[in-house]
């Protein structure tokens, strides 16, 4: 399926490739023992290696290597057991070395695939070109001083994985779905926390347009876009801009552009005097990275169940719809919560409904994550048990849930306290119904003369009289009996 964009002179195909920079989850930096935690005081997490003092030698952090290999395995990619670190040379104040240690011709991970779930329910494979390890740069603060930029090197030297897709994406929605899936995989693997606001995942977006079937057009790159929504906006805007230029008889200049989220537009970055010439060469401070087969196999054996496999299992084992399964596996924590609810043989479809509609609904309203849920999986399970053994009705269950969410109490405790147990005592319900019939002879006559619509009205009255506690099935049976 290819989404085409209609221009003034016919249809256009948008071609998108993404380079995602994902910060590796590790305690220490890629080549130094300084910490990686976010939000520390400026320059307090900097070693003399990160500050590029003379005579300092980089030593690679083994866990960062493991994280890159795990990610490669999670992307069904080829692991290169021989890879090389290169110096990418450029000058910028937040790069004290004057070069970034990166991988150029021989990255640690080669080609792979991500299966992307599109909004229309279809799934599509998107190619991964490569993944390589590199150092992050420091941070420049431009808005604290009108004349100067302030430099904080805390982030300098933190390990990044640059994950490059093939130009396989054809619309903003596909790009969004790809990022969502990639983020889920990284979070399942625990190799990147995927927190885009804190900058631990950022995307460079390459966009070009062409007539369907023609060779690729000239591309423009938007650097450092830091949310999925902005990536989609940048693509929409940029595709439109390029189509208009070409339709007006112009041509696209290959350039780096900046996406401005406030205006929702892209514009050229200040023209560089010099086209980038990074003069890559192998870093003489580092030997090639050689991985044994055992090293890779051990990591492969310890991989967690990833979203695609989990989704398939949820559909087969629990009989869930593709939609429900997708929603539940989107986050590892959500899937674990659901499995804890169904543990002990509770009905999976009911559990899925409650987790998706009631729990997610309440969490969203209060802007909470599943980890912050006031209702634990065991507690929600307890509520479902009360529903299953008919201790409470479905309507009451919703009220009990709201109360649980508010107070964190167990369902049984709330039912007991508030006397919400379902009335299944036929005698008690009969008494209530006889009273209603006696009080409303007109409606009773209407029913007897064939107007069965008033039956609903009687059920409503009976439920109201019992504060919703009567078993609705029993009410209907008794009504039919008494009015028939």
């Amino acid at each position, binding site marked *: 399926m290819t989404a085409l964009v209609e221009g003034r002179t016919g249809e256009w195909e948008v071609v998108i490739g993404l380079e995602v920079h994902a910060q590796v989850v590790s305690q220490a930096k890629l080549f130094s023992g300084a910490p990686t935690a976010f939000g520390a005081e400026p320059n307090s997490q900097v*070693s003399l290696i990160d500050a590029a003092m003379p005579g300092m030698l980089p030593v690679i952090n*083994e866990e960062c290597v493991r994280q890159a290999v795990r990610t490669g395995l999670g992307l069904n990619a080829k692991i290169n057991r021989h890879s090389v670190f290169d110096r990418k040379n450029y000058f910028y104040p937040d790069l004290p070395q004057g070069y970034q240690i990166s991988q150029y011709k021989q990255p640690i991970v080669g080609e792979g695939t991500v299966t992307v779930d599109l909004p229309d329910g279809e799934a599509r494979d998107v190619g991964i070109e490569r993944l390589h390890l590199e150092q992050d740069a420091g941070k420049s603060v431009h808005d604290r001083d009108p004349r100067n930029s302030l430099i904080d090197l805390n982030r300098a030297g933190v390990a990044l994985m640059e994950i490059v897709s093939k130009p396989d994406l054809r619309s903003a929605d596909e790009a969004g779905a790809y990022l969502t899936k990639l983020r889920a995989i990284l979070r399942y693997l625990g190799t990147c926390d995927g927190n885009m606001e804190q900058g631990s995942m950022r995307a460079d977006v390459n966009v070009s347009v062409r007539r369907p079937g023609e060779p690729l057009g000239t591309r423009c790159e938007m650097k450092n876009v830091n949310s999925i929504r902005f990536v989609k906006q940048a693509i929409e805007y940029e595709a439109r801009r390029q189509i208009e230029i070409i339709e007006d008889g112009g041509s696209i200049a290959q350039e780096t552009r900046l996406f401005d989220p406030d205006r929702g537009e892209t514009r050229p970055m200040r023209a560089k005097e010099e086209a980038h010439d990074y003069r890559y060469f192998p870093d003489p401070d580092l030997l090639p990275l050689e991985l044994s087969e055992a090293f890779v196999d051990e990591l492969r054996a310890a991989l967690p169940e990833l979203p695609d496999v989990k989704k398939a299992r949820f559909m087969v084992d629990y009989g869930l719809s593709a939609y429900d399964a997708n929603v539940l596996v989107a986050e590892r924590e959500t899937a674990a919560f659901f499995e804890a609810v169904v543990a002990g043989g509770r009905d999976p479809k009911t559990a899925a409904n409650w987790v998706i509609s009631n729990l997610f609904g309440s969490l969203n309203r209060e802007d909470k994550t599943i980890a912050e849920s006031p209702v634990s999986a065991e507690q929600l399970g307890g509520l479902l048990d009360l529903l299953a053994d008919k201790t409470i009705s479905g309507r009451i269950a919703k009220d009990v849930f709201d109360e649980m969410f508010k107070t964190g109490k167990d369902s049984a405790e709330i039912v007991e306290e508030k006397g919400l147990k379902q009335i299944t005592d036929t005698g008690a319900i009969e008494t209530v119904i006889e009273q209603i019939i006696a009080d409303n002879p007109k409606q009773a006559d209407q029913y007897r003369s064939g107007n069965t619509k008033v039956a609903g009205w009687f059920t409503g009255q009976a439920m109201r009289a019992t504060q919703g506690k009567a078993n609705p099935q029993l009410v209907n049976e008794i009504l039919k009996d008494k009015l028939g």
Partner: protein
Amino acid sequence: MALDKQTVARVARLARIHTNDDQLDALARQLSNILGWIEQLREVDTDQTAPMTSVAEMTLAMREDRVTDGAYPEKVLANAPVRTDDFYTVPKVVE
């Protein structure tokens, strides 16, 4: 392979090495000589030889993922020509 003056000026600019115009001819000559020597080496047939990245017969040493360094902004900033609080301060760079 001979380098012209423009190329030498460009390489110098990329490396942030200041050069005066009257130095360029001499630099071009010297660098061309070095390149000529490298080109001579390239005549050796290395088709069957893997690139040598090091003379040491060892593999890359790795470190454990433990925090062992940092927490000394004073040391890090000791040589900073200008600072604001604990930030390095440089002339404005804006993209």
